[in-house]
C-alpha cells in the first residue's frame, strides 16, 4: 500500500522534491503539495484501491503525510471488507 501511495504521489503530486526523500511522516504540504495536486492524488487512490473518500476525510489532515493517507486508506479498505 505504501508503495502504491508513493507511486501516486510521484505521478500526480507535482512535488518539487523527490518522493523517495520523504519520510512516511514528513509534512506533504511543507514539501509543496498543492490543494489541486492533493485532489489528483485522491482520485488516483480511489481508483487504485477501489474506495471512495467520505466527506469527513476530505480535509487537510487526511493528506498531511504518507502515513496519514495510509491510515485513511486502511480505514476505508477495512470498512469495505467488514
Amino acid at each position, binding site marked *: 500500500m505504501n508503495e502504491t501511495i508513493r507511486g501516486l504521489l510521484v505521478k500526480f503530486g507535482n512535488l518539487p*522534491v523527490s518522493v523517495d526523500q520523504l519520510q512516511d511522516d514528513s509534512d506533504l*504540504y511543507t514539501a509543496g503539495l498543492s*490543494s489541486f495536486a492533493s485532489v489528483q492524488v485522491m482520485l488516483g487512490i480511489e481508483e487504485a484501491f477501489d474506495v471512495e473518500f467520505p466527506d469527513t476525510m*476530505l*480535509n487537510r489532515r487526511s493528506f498531511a503525510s504518507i502515513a496519514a493517507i495510509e491510515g485513511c486508506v486502511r480505514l476505508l479498505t477495512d470498512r469495505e471488507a467488514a
Partner: protein
Amino acid sequence: MNVAVVIPDTSLETRARRVAAVAARQADAVDARACFPREAVDTMIAERLLGIQIPVSLGGEGAGFAEIAEVCSILGQACAASAMVFAMHHIKLSSLVEHGLESPWHTQFMRRIAAEQLLLGSATTEGGIGGNLRNSICAAEVAGGICRLEKDATVISYGDHADAILITSRAHADAVSTDQVMTVFLKDQYTLEKTHVWDTLGMRGTCSDGFLFRGVAPAEQIFPKPFAEIAAQSMLAASHLLWSGVWYGIAADAVARAQAFVRAAARKTPGTTPPGALRLAEVSTMLQTVRSNIVAGLKAYEEAKADPERLSSMGFSVAMNNVKLCSSETILAIVNHAMLICGIMGYKNGTPFSLGRHLRDVHSAQLMISNDRILSNVASMLLVHKLDNSLLG
C-alpha cells in the same frame, strides 16, 4: 490614535448607523477624488468599531461574523469604500482572534488594537503571483530573533493609512512556494515605496496602491500557525462573508433608490402601476437570494467554527466559495436592474437616484480574488467532494 470620546451605551447597529451617516455624506467626494474616507474611519474609531471582534477579556466586545457582516452591510449602503476598509480590517483581525490567542505577542497586540483602535492592512497579493494567495515568492529571513521581509506587494488597500500590515511570505529562504507564514509588522517597522497608484473604475476610496514593502520586526510577530491553516480556517470564511456583507449593502442601496423612484412615480399617478414596478419586484427576488445566501453562509460558519477539522474540510470551502461567487455575480445584475428602473435619473450623477458609483463599485467583486480562480478551485474539489443534497444542511 487614542480618541477620548465617551460613547453612550448604544447598540452596535446604532453606532454603525452614525458612521454610515458620515460615510454617506462623503461617499461621492471620496469616489471622485479617489481619497481615503478619513472622516468615516475617524468616526469608526470614535465609535470604537475597530475592536469589536476582539474578546471582551482583551478589551473588545467579542462580536461574531454575523454582527460584523451586518455593520459591513450598513456601511456598504452608505459608502462602499468605507465599508470595504472596515471589512478588510476585520478580516485581518479574524486571523488574530482565531489564531493569535496562543501567542503572547499577538494577544498583547489585540489589547493594543482594542485600546488604541489600530487599523490593520493586508498584503497577500504579490507581483508574479496575483490573487493566488496560497503561494508566495518572497521569503521571511529569520536570524537572531529578527524577521526581515521584502515584498513586491502590488495591492495594499489603505497601505498609507494602516497602523500595521499583516503580510504573507514563504516561511524561510528554502521553503516551497506554498509553505507560507503570516507576520504582523507595525507601522514603525516597515517602509512602503509606492509602485502603483490606485486609479480605478470603482472602490476608489480604498486607495489600494501597490508598494515595495520592506520590514524588520522581532520574529515573535510571525503567527505561530502555518498560513495555510489560517487561510483555510478563518480567512476564507471571513473574506467571503464580510466582503459579501459589503456587496449586499451596495446592492440593497441601489434597490432602495429604484424603489424610491417607482414609489415617486406611483404617487404622481395614483390608480396606475408605474412601468418600473414589475422590474422592482423582479430585482427584489435577486436581492433576497443574495441575502439568504450570505445568511446561510454565516450560519454554516457558526456551526463549523468550533471544529478546525470541519473548517478545513472541502465541504466548507465549497460552501464559502459559493457564497462569494453568488453574491459577486448577482449584485451586478441587481445594480443593472436598478439602473433600468431609474433610467437616465440613475445614469446621471448627482440625482437622488444616481447609480453610477454603485455600478462601478460592484464590478470589483468578481475580480477581488478572481471568480475564475475560485471556480477552478471549486471544480477541482468537486472531483472528490460529493455535494450535500439535504435542504436544511
